[in-house]
């Protein structure tokens, strides 16, 4: 593994057995992600995108295959995940939620509140630090989620459709904030999304997956210079062509997944 590779997978396979039925969620995935790279994963529902992230997050084990994650600093946590849906602890205030990773690490309270305060500011959560999540909107909660993942300063950032449940305005705002905070950190990131648009805004490369079984269909590099701005980005000459390319790859898979659903 060369020093610039952060994640390397060889023939990574995950099989679930449910009700005597064998479901191949991931089928011999070969992938390597470079250090500091932003990789977006798109694919039809049920293609094992979430399973892939959960294996990387240490929440699940592959059935077979090799997975190597390079750790530069053993002090740092390997991964932090932004979960799909509402995963903000309702029993903690905003600042306690954001500082959660540091609490697990055993940092003293003053120290962890200081670090969390920086990210609360970065994610535009100032003034809400002492609020409980039930007082906040869905967009605010996702800001907490992203801040919580960044605060623990992991080697690799995993995001599973973090903005999937948000309305368009909030989604655009958060994409912009994420770009800002991520470009400053240079963290290796994997990001699942259903939106081709979102993938093009964020990614260095886009991985298109097939469903049943989940395989890598294509990996498309996104040649749009950084720092990016979500507005000027859309008028970039590559944008339309890339969108078309990804959609054509994806369309086939979505239709195939649909017809399989009908059969079963």
């Amino acid at each position, binding site marked *: 593994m060369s020093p610039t590779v952060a994640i390397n997978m060889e023939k990574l396979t995950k099989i679930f057995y449910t009700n005597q039925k064998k479901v191949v969620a991931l089928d011999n995935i070969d992938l390597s992600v470079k250090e500091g790279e932003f990789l977006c994963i798109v694919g039809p529902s049920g293609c094992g995108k979430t399973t892939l992230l959960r294996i990387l997050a240490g929440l699940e084990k592959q059935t077979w295959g090799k997975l190597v994650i390079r750790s530069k600093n053993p002090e740092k946590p390997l991964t932090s995940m932004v*979960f799909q849906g509402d995963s903000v*602890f309702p029993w903690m205030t905003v600042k306690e939620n954001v500082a959660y990773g540091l609490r*697990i690490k055993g940092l003293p309270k003053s120290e962890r509140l200081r670090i969390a305060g920086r990210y609360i500011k970065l994610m535009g959560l100032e003034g809400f630090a002492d609020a409980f999540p039930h007082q906040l909107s869905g967009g605010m909660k996702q800001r907490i989620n992203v801040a919580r993942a960044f605060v623990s300063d992991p080697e690799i950032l995993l995001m599973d459709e973090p903005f999937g449940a948000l309305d368009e305005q909030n989604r655009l705002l958060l994409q912009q904030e994420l770009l800002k905070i991520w470009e400053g950190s240079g963290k290796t990131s994997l990001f699942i999304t259903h939106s081709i648009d979102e993938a093009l805004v964020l990614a260095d490369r886009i991985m298109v997956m097939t469903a049943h079984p989940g395989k890598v269909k294509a990996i498309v590099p996104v040649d749009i210079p950084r720092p990016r701005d979500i507005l000027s980005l859309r008028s970039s000459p590559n944008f339309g062509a890339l969108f078309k390319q990804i959609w054509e790859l994806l369309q086939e898979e979505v239709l195939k997944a649909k017809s399989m659903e009908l059969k079963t």
Partner: protein
Amino acid sequence: MAENRIRFSATLIERGINMSLMEETLQEQLSRIIIKEAKGESKKAVFDKGLLLKVLAFLSPSLLLVLWEIFARLELIDIRLFSSPVMIFKTMMPMLYSGELLYHTFISAQRIVLGFLAGAVPGVILGLSMGLFAPVRASLMPMVSATFPIPKLAIMPLILIIFGLGEASKIFTIGIGVFYLVLINTMAGVLNIDDIYLDVAKNFGAKPFQFYTTVAFPGALPMIFAGFKLGMGTALLLIVAAELSAAKAGVGWMIWRAYDMFDIEKMFVALITLAFLGYIFSNLLEIAEKIVIPWQNNRR
């Protein structure tokens, strides 16, 4: 208003319309508007409604007491069995002044609190472990399921033999009743926590003890408090039974003592005291719940 009317009338004149007729309809419209304004629901009316409900809530039990007294005076009910509010009050006051009632209340409250703690603390700890760790649940659940349905009163004689006639047997009797309710509620509370929160803790590398403190315990707190409230009800039930045998003081003892002496008034005083104790304890739990679970406000 008047100014508008004049201006309106003026335009009518300009247009040469029969003014007196228009004036009449205008008058009608104005009066209609005023009627509407008067009928609007003011804040005061809403407030009065709330007050009325409060008065009703106070009035209906008072009325019942008055009826009870009247029935007793008219000897429509047997006062040897049902007594009367005034007679009960007359028995209660000296007991209150002499400190006798307070003493018995204190003794019982102490037993309830100690018994409650003796049951609730292990109930929470074991309930959290059984909720979090499947092997613990698998090994302990059969015993819990098998022993839970045994009426706690049925094991009282055994408790008396093991713990003797002192305080320990009473505290244990209450404790065991509270224990099961808290244990089962706590476990259900942990099992009801959304998997996503456990995943977050795992992803951040939480150690087993941190699972307790940051996810299982706070996540199960609403259910734990539901268990506390049920347990408190059981504690009040068991205190009377526990003080039946081998007690020399306490509200439960007062009831059995009054039974032996056929002192109906004293029995009623003890019953009122028990109701009061129950009210105080359930209010204390409500207050504690509001302080300990601030995130639950507005959630329901």
